[in-house]
């Protein structure tokens, strides 16, 4: 045992709030991510509701333009960075170690640090609303309007620092999951026997590692422009706004695959399970994911078709963008082939998955329309794009997340969600989503630009804007009902056994809820869908063992204060960076925050391990 020159003892079986603050258990961290992200999703929904209320009628005066610009900025930033990504992380956290037969991730304390740092980033971003104004230049923050000349207040600074802090959280998590998946699979679980969700998590994590540094650099350059007078994007100093756009979209396009691949992974688990058939074309589905991850680096300028790159660049990016439609389509065909000749159970997870396919196909097809740079000149920056975005992210990522929540809820809580309520929510969400977003295709082709706080009646956009706003109320009803379902079922839902869905993957071979140690004995994997194969062939000794109490001690990672403390340093330091030049307090906060991070990392590296018999049976 290593001793450190700190008098701080490692926590010993903490309970209550301290239990949550010091946990390094991937399952608890998954729950933390999921609940926090869902609450933030609701705030993003409120931002959207206000936007739609303002746009419901022409020349509306509900929301002033300054506020409106903050609303659409925060709506996009919240949904992408504070809702969909961390909801994905919630699933990675809870499910991956279980699917690969491990007791936790490779770096449990780093895992906790990822969550608390995500929370710090969320606080920094959201607090901007009440600290002088939220960022107001779009979630994509195009220069030069993000520069000090055009944007004096601190909104943009909150955006920069918030995203940097979130980036640290994402990178830490990505490294963790790559190492976990590569190194900690159960014996016999070769890469080509891994569940598709595990594969998609691996690819997503690699994309995160490669993409985030790009936006980190862009944000540092913007921050230096705003704080230290550099001229990366300041036009009077020779700066080029297109530099920002290239940097942003080299990050931004892989980012959208980061948003959709985990969703595709979830669907790829649910469809086979509820069809009682293996995924059709496993190798091809995996390969498609890899190809999408790779090609995703070669399409970024399709976001810039109208900035004047010239016909050669536009043609090349149009073609690469069309190319990426192929592996995407192939996945869809494989899901449908999985259903074909299956035994299909239309429970809520399956309903959401089928909804995902329909809605994602629509979003993918409008994406193909955008890929044609020539006709995209009419579609870019209009509501046609807003329609596309929401079909792939709402109809796609979000529907998959709802599906995944229904699917893994019993494993997390030991109870089932209410099926009737689930089906009604699904119907309301599907209908509402289409009422809100389908008309936006018409509005875009009818000439309505994005990011406009109002419009005049002579444009002819009144009807579809009103319809789009009405759809929001179906969505609200669906989400409220879903929330009721989750909260009620968590406390009083019908008890679930270890395998309520007749599942195929390892997480269904252990009790619901999952004991702290996950597996009594790490399984020895003999094939893909190992659990299913063992169930059907009667090879159940290992399964029965994992459903009983362990007979000996199981060594587990131990809780720690330092991850959360380090994140506190990120939070304080982050605020310090926002106010750096304003006053000594800003500088002080930055320095103090930095010191807290340093101290935490040092203590973390050297903290002692409690003796096994002192810390209890684990």
């Amino acid at each position: 045992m290593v001793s450190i020159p700190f008098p701080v003892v490692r926590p010993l079986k903490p309970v209550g709030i301290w239990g949550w603050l010091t946990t390094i258990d991937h399952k608890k961290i998954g729950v933390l991510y999921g609940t926090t992200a869902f609450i933030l999703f609701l705030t993003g929904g409120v931002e959207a509701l206000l936007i739609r209320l303002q746009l419901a009628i022409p020349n509306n005066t509900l929301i002033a333009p300054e506020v409106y610009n903050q609303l659409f900025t925060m709506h996009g930033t919240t949904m992408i960075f504070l809702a969909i990504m961390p909801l994905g992380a919630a699933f990675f956290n809870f499910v991956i170690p279980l699917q690969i037969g491990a007791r936790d991730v490779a770096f449990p304390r780093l895992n906790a640090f990822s969550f608390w740092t995500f929370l710090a980033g969320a606080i920094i971003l959201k607090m901007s609303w009440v600290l002088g104004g939220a960022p107001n230049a779009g979630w994509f923050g195009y220069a030069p309007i993000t520069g000090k000349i055009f944007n004096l207040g601190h909104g943009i600074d909150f955006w920069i620092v918030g995203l940097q802090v979130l980036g640290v959280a994402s990178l830490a998590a990505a490294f963790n999951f790559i190492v976990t998946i590569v190194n900690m699979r159960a014996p016999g679980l070769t890469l080509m026997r891994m569940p598709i969700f595990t594969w998609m998590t691996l690819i997503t994590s690699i994309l995160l590692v490669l993409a985030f540094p790009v936006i980190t650099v862009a944000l540092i350059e913007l921050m230096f422009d705003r704080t230290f007078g550099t001229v990366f994007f300041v036009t009077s100093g020779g700066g080029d706004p297109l530099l920002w756009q290239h940097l942003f979209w080299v990050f931004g396009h892989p980012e959208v695959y980061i948003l959709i691949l985990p969703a595709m992974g979830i669907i790829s688990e649910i469809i086979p399970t509820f069809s009682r058939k293996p995924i059709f074309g496993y190798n091809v589905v995996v390969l498609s994911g890899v190809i999408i991850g790779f090609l995703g680096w070669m399409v970024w300028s399709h976001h810039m078709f109208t900035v004047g790159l010239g016909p050669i660049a536009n043609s090349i990016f149009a073609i690469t963008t069309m190319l990426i439609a192929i592996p995407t389509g192939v996945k869809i065909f494989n899901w449908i082939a999985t259903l074909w000749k299956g035994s299909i159970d239309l429970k809520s997870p399956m309903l959401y998955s089928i909804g995902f396919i329909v809605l994602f196909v629509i979003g993918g097809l409008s994406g193909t329309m955008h890929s044609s740079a020539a006709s995209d000149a009419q579609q870019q920056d209009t509501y046609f794009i807003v329609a596309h975005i929401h079909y792939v992210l709402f109809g796609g990522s979000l529907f998959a997340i709802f599906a995944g929540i229904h699917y893994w809820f019993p494993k997390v809580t030991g109870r089932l969600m209410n099926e009737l309520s689930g089906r009604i929510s699904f119907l309301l969400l599907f209908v509402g989503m289409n009422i809100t977003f389908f008309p936006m295709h018409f509005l875009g082709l009818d000439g309505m630009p994005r990011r406009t706080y109002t419009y005049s009646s002579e444009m002819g956009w009144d009807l579809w804007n009103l319809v789009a706003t009405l759809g929001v109320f179906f969505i609200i009803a669906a989400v409220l009902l879903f929330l009721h379902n989750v909260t009620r079922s968590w406390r009083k839902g019908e008890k679930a056994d270890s395998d309520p869905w007749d599942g195929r993957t390892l997480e269904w071979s252990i009790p619901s809820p999952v004991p702290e140690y996950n597996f009594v004995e790490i399984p020895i994997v003999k094939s893909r869908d190992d659990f299913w194969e063992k169930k059907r062939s009667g090879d159940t000794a290992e399964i029965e063992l994992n459903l009983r109490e362990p007979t000996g001690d199981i060594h587990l990672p131990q809780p720690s204060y330092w991850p959360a403390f380090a994140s506190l340093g990120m939070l304080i330091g982050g605020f310090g960076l926002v106010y750096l030049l304003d006053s000594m307090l800003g500088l002080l906060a930055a320095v103090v925050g930095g010191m807290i991070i340093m101290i935490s990392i040092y203590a973390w590296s050297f903290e002692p391990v409690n003796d096994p018999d002192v810390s209890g049976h684990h």
Partner: protein
Amino acid sequence: MGCTPDHPQSTFNVAGPVAESQLTLFYWILAAAVFVFVIVTAILFWAVFRYRRKVSDKDPEQIHGNTKLEIAWTILPAIILVFVAIPTVITIFDNANSPCTYEEGCLEVTVEAAQWFWNFTYKDPSNPDLEVMTSNEMRIPVDEVVNIRLTSRDVLHSFWIPNIAGKLDIVPNHVNTMWIQSNIEGEFYAQCAEFCGIAHALMSFRVYADSRDEFNEWMKLQATEASIPAEPLALEGKKLFEGEKQCYACHKVMGTKARSNVGPDLTHVASRTQLAAGILDNTQDNLRKWLEDPESIKPGNKMARQATVYTDETKKLNDPEISALVAYLQTLK
């Protein structure tokens, strides 16, 4: 349903070759997309219906895949995409290369976009002696290629006349070029299509395609200096404009001491159909309302936020002053 060509900014109401080529391409891809959507969802729904679980079901056959099928459904979309890619690339190049450049004798208009209005400077080989710079209303000769040069004074903007052509962004420190052409005489709505700040939603302009003769007349008019008004109220307005109300600090009226480029040029403002960058019909009433309280009409606009008559309570415009200014501005035909 979605195609309402009678709406002023509809991309379905094509007036010229660029917009037409873009709409044709759109229809082509739409046809392919609808085809794919119908087939995929039909098969999906059929599968869900036909293979829904019955209580008596045993495990279905555990089919793992089919290589021939994988090849087929990889190649088929690829073929469809080839039929999308080829017309796409052709159209991209057609629309990028002007059929008649300024050097080849065709009109060139340099657009300067500024928060939140538009300046248009004309170089017309058919009218080589005329120097024309106007704001917020663009007139072009019908059936002729018009070359557009896009410049920005401040942030990103985008130049979009949906009936005539898809948009091109306006990037500070860049000069983007495009060509447009209208084959129909008439009025066309246009709007900034790249987020540019508080009043982005209210940064529009109008385009008018006239016969060549009418266009030449308009050019001659725009090139002339403002006439001195005869009527006393208008003269009073001119005095205020060039004097204590400081309108000259931001607005140009050719032939007078008002020479600033900060705001839109007003030399021939009375000849325009719209005010305040395409958002208000140019009537006496609206002009009055604009001068009374520009912030309420176009929140965030720089006149309301920077002109002393709006920022300094002691220098506010009173009603008679507004009447005089309105009278003056209405003489600026």
